[in-house]
């Protein structure tokens, strides 16, 4: 996702371009701002929607793998997006099964390989997945609001 980090500014750029064009066409700066704001809001929502779908693809791939494993097993995982950027792969290791009255859940470790070749050092993260109907979905909840900091 790193090459697309600048995507979040696209909304601002689009809003500025649209707002300027509207203001020039109507000679009313307030109208230009209103149209620019509306465009930026729509563009922001659209870009965030795309970003979220991007990550959902990766989360679903990992969760689906987790759902088929045995405790203690390690398996490779990978995700391939429609555009050939941001494709990732690594390993998954199932740690434990979590039986709950609500749904079966699992805790797993997953690694994301950075770089290529034999020296690529993988980074490991812990996560969880729960079964919703027939599919396994990412189950890690949001952090406590006291820890949101720059995330907002």
């Amino acid at each position: 996702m790193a090459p697309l980090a600048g995507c979040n500014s696209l909304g601002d750029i689009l809003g500025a371009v649209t707002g300027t064009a509207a203001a020039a066409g109507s000679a009313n700066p307030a109208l230009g701002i209103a149209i620019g704001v509306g465009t930026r809001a729509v563009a922001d929502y659209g870009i965030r929607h795309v970003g979220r779908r991007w990550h959902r693809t990766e989360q679903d791939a990992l969760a689906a793998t987790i759902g088929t494993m045995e405790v203690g097993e390690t398996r490779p995982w990978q995700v391939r997006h429609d555009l050939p950027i941001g494709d990732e792969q690594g390993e998954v290791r199932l740690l434990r099964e979590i039986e709950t009255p609500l749904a079966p859940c699992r805790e797993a470790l997953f690694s994301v390989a950075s770089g290529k070749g034999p020296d690529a050092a993988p980074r490991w993260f812990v996560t969880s997945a729960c079964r919703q109907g027939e599919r396994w979905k990412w189950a890690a909840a949001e952090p406590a609001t006291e820890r949101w900091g720059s995330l907002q």
Partner: protein
Amino acid sequence: MRAGPAALPLLCLSLLLPGCQALLTEATSTVAGITGASVASGVGADPAVTTGIGLGVQAIGRAGLQYAQRLTHRAGQDRIAAAAGPLPVGGVGSWATDHTIPVEPNEHGQVAVSRVISTGPLECKEIVFSVDTGHDETLQRGFFLAAICRNGETWKWASAEPATERWGSLQ
């Protein structure tokens, strides 16, 4: 620059769309920025100063909305934690939010304790909670895992933020 006529439709729109975070963020901070800038230019400040004041007020407006969002979300987390805190391992409870100002839509579901993480002076539990939408045939349930710890008499959300390498589009 007159802010009145342009600000009103933006405000009305923001009130009608409680779940549309992008529009809410835009309307609040930009209207605040426009109002601030128009006051500054009315007082006779030069354009550069006016722009600076407008952007500064916009930043405060956005910070104000983020504060409201954080408070609203914290209320939801506190509800889930309070419902799960007294439960034993394997116990199930219900939770629901009831926001006065719907910065986020109201949600409801169930919560269960899956295991005790630690006991003694630091009491923490691992919980699984559901967020339910629709009912009967259209019922959709999402399940999520989190942790809560007891802080004096109240139970609080204890899940930490993800590793920065995983922030991606979150920021």
